[in-house]
């Protein structure tokens, strides 16, 4: 039986989740040149926000059709609040400091957020079960799409479209592009750069929140460490696609996801490579791909060639 279509779908689903989280890295980097390593944890707090809405706010047995939008709102509210708070209290005071200072702050913040959820969220010391969407899996040809993934299939392209519209068509979006190109000039032209930066953090967090709800539905469980590896992968996706470019983030995510799925499925079939084909090697192959892309196109798949900005 040909498993290629199924493995491609597996990869694309995983990849669109990477992409949703990668947008946050790339937007913040594009505007303030900060690698926000706490972004993975912002993603994690979003998932716990959604869980809180479902478990502690909604009455038992609420229909998923009502619960899902409210969970999404809960996730976005929590993630955006954390992200904006982080920007205001952890990053803004350091904006004119050397670039390493906010980077270290981001790492510290990432640990602090993990530990905060671990310590204070009820029963978060081990994984917590996430609600699931009822209904059976969908079969299209010999490809199966799980019910939990349907949300991701719908949410990822929709979020991308909204983001593209926002950045290209609205006044704030254009202000964002201007700030990314040259913050000082943008300020002289009357763009409120502080506001733009806050919006970039908030938007990135909102997309991470959508991704976190998708993660919960896909895997059925969330825990305080879920953001760490996923954040790392999403950051890789952002670099792969060209950091600073929002389409690049999504494309990078998809490429990374597909690369992981296909290397798990097929590397072992290459003669002599059976030792290097299992899922535990998928990350290695994903990073080999990253290195190859960066060797051939140092600016990433869709990145513009910018004279040493970082």
């Amino acid at each position: 039986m040909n498993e290629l279509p199924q493995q491609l779908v597996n990869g694309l689903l995983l990849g669109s989740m990477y992409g949703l989280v990668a947008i946050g890295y790339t937007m913040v980097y594009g505007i303030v040149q900060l690698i926000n390593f706490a972004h993975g944890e912002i993603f994690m707090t979003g998932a716990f926000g959604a869980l809180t809405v479902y478990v502690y706010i909604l009455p038992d047995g609420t229909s998923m059709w009502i619960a899902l939008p409210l969970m999404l709102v809960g996730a976005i509210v929590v993630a955006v609040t954390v992200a904006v708070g982080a920007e205001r209290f952890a990053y803004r005071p350091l904006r004119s400091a050397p670039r390493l200072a906010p980077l270290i702050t981001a790492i510290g913040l990432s640990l602090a957020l993990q530990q905060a959820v671990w310590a204070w969220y009820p029963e978060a010391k081990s994984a917590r079960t996430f609600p699931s969407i009822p209904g059976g899996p969908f079969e299209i040809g010999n490809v199966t799409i799980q019910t939990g993934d349907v949300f991701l299939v719908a949410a990822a392209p929709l979020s991308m479209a909204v983001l593209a519209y926002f950045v290209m068509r609205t006044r704030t979006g254009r202000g964002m592009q201007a700030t990314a190109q040259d913050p000082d000039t943008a300020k002289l032209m009357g763009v409120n750069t502080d506001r733009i930066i806050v919006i970039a953090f908030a938007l990135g967090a909102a997309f991470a929140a959508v991704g976190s709800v998708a993660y919960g539905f896909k895997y059925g469980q969330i825990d305080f460490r879920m953001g760490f590896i996923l954040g790392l992968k999403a950051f890789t996706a952002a670099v792969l696609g060209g950091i600073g470019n929002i389409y690049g983030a999504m494309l990078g995510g998809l490429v990374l996801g597909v690369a992981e799925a296909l290397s798990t499925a097929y590397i072992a079939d290459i003669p002599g490579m059976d030792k290097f084909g299992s899922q535990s090697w998928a990350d290695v192959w994903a990073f080999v791909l990253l290195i190859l892309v960066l060797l051939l196109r140092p600016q990433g798949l869709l990145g513009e060639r910018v004279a040493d900005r970082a």
Partner: protein
Amino acid sequence: MRQRSLIAITAALSAGALTLTACGSRDSGDNGSDAKGGTTVTIGIDAPLTGDLSALGLGIKNSVDLAVKNANKKEYVKGVTFKVEAKDDQGQPSSGQQNSTAFVTDKSVLGVVGPLNSSVAESMQKVLDDAKLAQVSPANTGPGLTQGPDWQKKKVRQYKSYFRTATTDAIQGPYAAEYVFNKAKKKKVFVIDDKKTYGAGLAATFTDAFKKLGGKVVGTEHINPDTKDFSAVATKVKNSGADVVYYGGEYPQAGPLTKQIKAAGAKVPLVGGDGIKDDTFFKLGGPAATGDYATSVGAPVETLPSAKQFVADYKAAGYKEAYAAYGGYSYDSAWSIIEAIKKVVDDNDGKVPSDARAKVTAALQNVSFDGVTGKVSFDEYGDATNKQLTVYSVKDGAWKAVESGTYNGS
């Protein structure tokens, strides 16, 4: 001004981080026994008290605490008051080693119960053995820990201070293979492991035995314990045509794994070792886990007459967490150390000798008593002489014992 606010915020943040760390370690402090007179002897505990495996780790900690409380209440060793000191290893070998060093430095520690993970044990053994500090693990099943890396050909005792009350994978893997092949009548297996000492070792002993019985291995796969996405692996399982999956690893991955395998359309049971036999397994796996199997060391604690007292005491003590898969073994591990200390102290006119650690280690070798899980004693490698195993299956949202037995095959 900006500089000052920067300092203020950094200070606030690091203070925050420190407080959080403090919160974390408060749990691992000694909240055990009430000291009253005499010499205080500490029994160390090393287990994952936080993180994915904390359900098992906290069960170990509470059970040891219970043993120590009972010993103090009965004044089992005259003139000695026991105290527990629990340290969190988060399932990480590096943390385990740091904890061992801390135990060695604390002169009141005469024995250590733990760890849960075989990979953590590897990092602890030498540190403790150099100090001649006795260690009894309730849960390590890696055969190499006691019998050396070449245990299949030549058995060599590794460390004189290392003992365990759990049965090894050298028995557990073949026992599972026999059940799967002969009783469950499954002939085509897909073997998955998590590359850790425990998981890979168990998968290897299972595979060998399964092939010897005439079964066919239709695929193997190694997963990355850090991820939760096993969809690519699940698709491979489905297409391999396997009628059973064997997983060498632990429940945080096994739960999502069984869920994703079944979701991919492969309606075959997943079989695992004691590492997946925790209630969290079917919480994570959901309905997909129904019909999955796990082997675990010993007979089910609830059915042993010797365990009734333990279960009642545990309930009376009011611990927040369940005693989990290793509760009885942890109690027995702690009690074996207490027995050894009693012998040493009795031989020395009721006083703790100055070279107590070496003497306790030596005494542990000859300990023999009726514990929670049956007769407790150690063979020449430090392994438990009790080699009973049980197959469990998930039914109606709980682990139900299917059958118990001992494995006597090669």
